[in-house]
């Protein structure tokens, strides 16, 4: 198999483009896709201070690497989840990555800073482990970005992530979520702008990029994620993609180009400040504070009849899909 650009032996095949690339040419086309995403959705300005949400996995480290190489002012934020050896290793590779590049890294630890870890949250809370993990991450990222004066949060969601999320939202006709599944969510009411510069690149491409760059990332999957709904949707999409390369891209990128505007009127969320922490929410207390109080056995003073059912509905979807729930352009 030959490289489409130079004819040298290829190391990575991108079947949806009916193309293959050698290492050198892949290092050209990969960041070009990132630059295209940034430009198309006006994601980043040259002067922005960017906070990259880093897990120690291939996607977030590949994203951080590309943004630094493109000259952006990109710091990393790592959230320690307390998931045994998995979290220990994730923290170590993230610290090593930052150190090798002399990049700023902010470390937050759920247990140390908020009083619980994810395994405990999964056992004691009413939400699934993946749901409370996603909720905790979104909360910590936004709060850290606000407190640190960052202009934008960048996450490593790739094409496979976004296609699987859109599939799940569509199967349930979650029109409010469908309306917000944009790769760039503008800042709004205490929510920092969020962007997904890897949304045009597949999981295979981000893994190949990380490997070819020699980035030491955590290959192992989170031990708590096995069998989650997101993985089942990815399996379904991959089964279709195997026989029809390009389907994932047509589904998600086609949605962005042609369908997202049609769902715009479904985006009705109004945000107010959480009475406990001040972070944005649709109810009296934000989902993070309510989850944390439940896990720690604390009371927030909310009466049952004051519970915000809209927010509960959002969380319900969050149980099965790692969607980000706020913003007016998703």
């Amino acid at each position: 198999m030959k490289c489409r650009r130079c004819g040298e032996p290829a190391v990575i095949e991108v079947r949806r483009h009916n193309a293959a690339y050698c290492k050198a040419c892949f290092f050209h086309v990969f960041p070009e896709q990132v630059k295209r995403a940034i430009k198309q959705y006006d994601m980043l300005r040259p002067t922005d201070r960017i906070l990259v949400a880093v897990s120690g996995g291939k996607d977030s480290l590949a994203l951080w690497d590309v943004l630094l190489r493109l000259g952006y002012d990109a710091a990393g934020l790592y959230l320690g989840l307390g998931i045994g050896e998995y979290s220990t290793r994730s923290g170590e590779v993230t610290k090593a990555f930052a150190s090798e590049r002399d990049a700023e890294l902010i470390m937050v630890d759920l247990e140390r800073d908020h009083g619980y870890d994810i395994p405990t949250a999964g056992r004691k809370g009413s939400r699934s482990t993946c749901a409370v993990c996603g909720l905790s991450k979104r909360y910590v990222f936004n709060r850290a970005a606000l407190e640190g004066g960052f202009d934008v949060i960048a996450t490593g969601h790739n094409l496979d992530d976004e296609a699987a999320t859109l599939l799940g939202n569509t199967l349930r006709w979650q029109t409010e979520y469908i309306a917000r599944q944009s790769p760039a969510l503008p800042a709004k009411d205490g929510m920092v702008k969020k962007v997904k510069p890897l949304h045009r690149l597949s999981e295979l491409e981000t893994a190949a990029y990380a490997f070819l760059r020699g980035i030491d990332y955590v290959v192992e999957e989170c031990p708590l994620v096995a069998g989650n709904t997101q993985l089942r949707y990815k399996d379904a999409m991959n089964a279709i993609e195997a026989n029809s390369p390009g389907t994932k891209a047509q589904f998600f990128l086609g949605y962005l180009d042609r369908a997202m505007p049609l769902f715009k009127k479904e985006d009705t969320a109004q945000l107010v400040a959480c009475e406990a922490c001040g972070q944005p929410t649709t109810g009296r207390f934000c989902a993070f504070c309510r989850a944390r109080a439940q896990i720690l056995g604390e009371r927030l003073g909310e009466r049952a009849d004051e519970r915000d059912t809209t927010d509960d509905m959002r969380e319900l979807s969050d149980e099965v899909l790692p969607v980000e729930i706020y913003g007016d352009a998703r």
Partner: protein
Amino acid sequence: MVLDELGVNPDTVLVIRSGELITREARVDDADEIEIRPVISGGSA
């Protein structure tokens, strides 16, 4: 061919031989040591 025999979708793994990434059409010998590395992750980033 190796992936076909194993029933693995080539879009879901990196195939690494002696520290080098190879494509699905690359020929491998019995003596080659091959790593098949999954690329799918299921958590929220």
